[in-house]
């Protein structure tokens, strides 16, 4: 018996480089469907622990779903050749990477994706935890087509939390938000708290921005990461459906 292949599926995932802040050539993980396209693109912004296997797995899932996804190593300058955990520790000890550098690197990844011959020209962002905060910032400063903030803490910052490397609270840039925004949160999260999510929602409404927020009961921080005990399968599955529908609407 010979059964037909009704749909060919294939993808490739590999390390590449693209230009970033100061035209530095930085390391990135690229995953894309094997096909001529055209495909929309997504820049995946890793969380504070770094350019780790679970973030790369998420990047590959996006490729499986039909997106050219790229995850820049935001710590590659500070810790070249280091393992993700060692790099994250070094960056943490130094107070994190600067917002300016991160936004520049994300901008470089967006340009890289749009220039690919199999790009449809539309590019979105997604970031987790600290990456969610950085996506909020980047969506206020860069020309992108959609942005997803997955439980980004410190979008709201007290004055004493501002530093030379993180000099502005992202929420203060909301009037400049250029892209439709999807927010995915957990009701039990403390970074951000539901109260902070409510304040961010109010600020987006104040400036009449296009956005949708979803917050899941019983879920806390990092509820979408299947490799952590904080994983909540029902919330994560629904969040995946929400983000794919959001990208299909704005990037497809």
């Amino acid at each position, binding site marked *: 018996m010979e059964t037909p292949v009704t749909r060919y599926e294939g993808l490739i995932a590999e390390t590449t480089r693209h230009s970033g802040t100061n035209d530095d050539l930085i390391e990135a993980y690229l995953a894309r469907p094997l096909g001529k396209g055209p495909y929309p693109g997504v820049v995946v912004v890793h969380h504070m*622990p770094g350019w780790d296997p679970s973030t790369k797995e998420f990047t590959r899932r996006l490729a499986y779903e039909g997106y050219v996804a790229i995850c820049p190593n935001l710590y590659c300058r500070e810790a070249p050749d280091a393992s993700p955990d060692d790099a994250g*520790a070094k960056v*943490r000890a130094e107070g994190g990477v600067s917002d300016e550098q991160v936004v520049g690197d994300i901008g470089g990844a967006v340009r890289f994706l749009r220039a690919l011959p199999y790009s449809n020209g539309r590019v979105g962002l997604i970031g987790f935890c600290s990456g969610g905060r950085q996506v909020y910032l980047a969506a206020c400063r860069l020309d992108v087509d959609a942005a997803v903030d997955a439980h980004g803490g410190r979008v709201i910052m007290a004055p004493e939390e501002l530093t030379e490397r993180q000099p502005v609270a992202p929420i203060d840039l909301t009037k400049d938000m250029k892209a439709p925004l999807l927010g995915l949160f957990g009701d039990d999260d403390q970074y951000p708290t539901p109260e902070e999510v409510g304040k961010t929602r109010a600020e987006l409404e104040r400036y009449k921005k296009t956005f949708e927020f979803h917050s899941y009961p019983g879920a806390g921080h990092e509820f979408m990461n299947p490799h*952590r005990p904080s994983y909540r399968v029902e919330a994560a599955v629904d969040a995946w459906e929400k983000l794919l529908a959001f990208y299909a609407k704005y990037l497809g």
Partner: protein
Amino acid sequence: MCSYITQGVELEGSAKSADKWFALGAASVYYDHPYHSAFNHSLNIDFLNAKEGPKSRVAVELSRDSALHLAEAILSCIKAGDEAHLS
């Protein structure tokens, strides 16, 4: 939690990583996501030598109660050592 809230401590001494001893310069202490242990949050300590680079690191990720027990044991040992060696 995914913050940069970290207490840096200058240290003198040595630590052993996977393949070598190195001179300690500092430690980062933070209560945040672990990288490996199965806790949502843990008390993490990175023993570091910044001059030798990111690979010169010894990392521990402890439950809150384990971290408190460790801190009490350290203080207890220092107290006993002071009595034994400084008297």
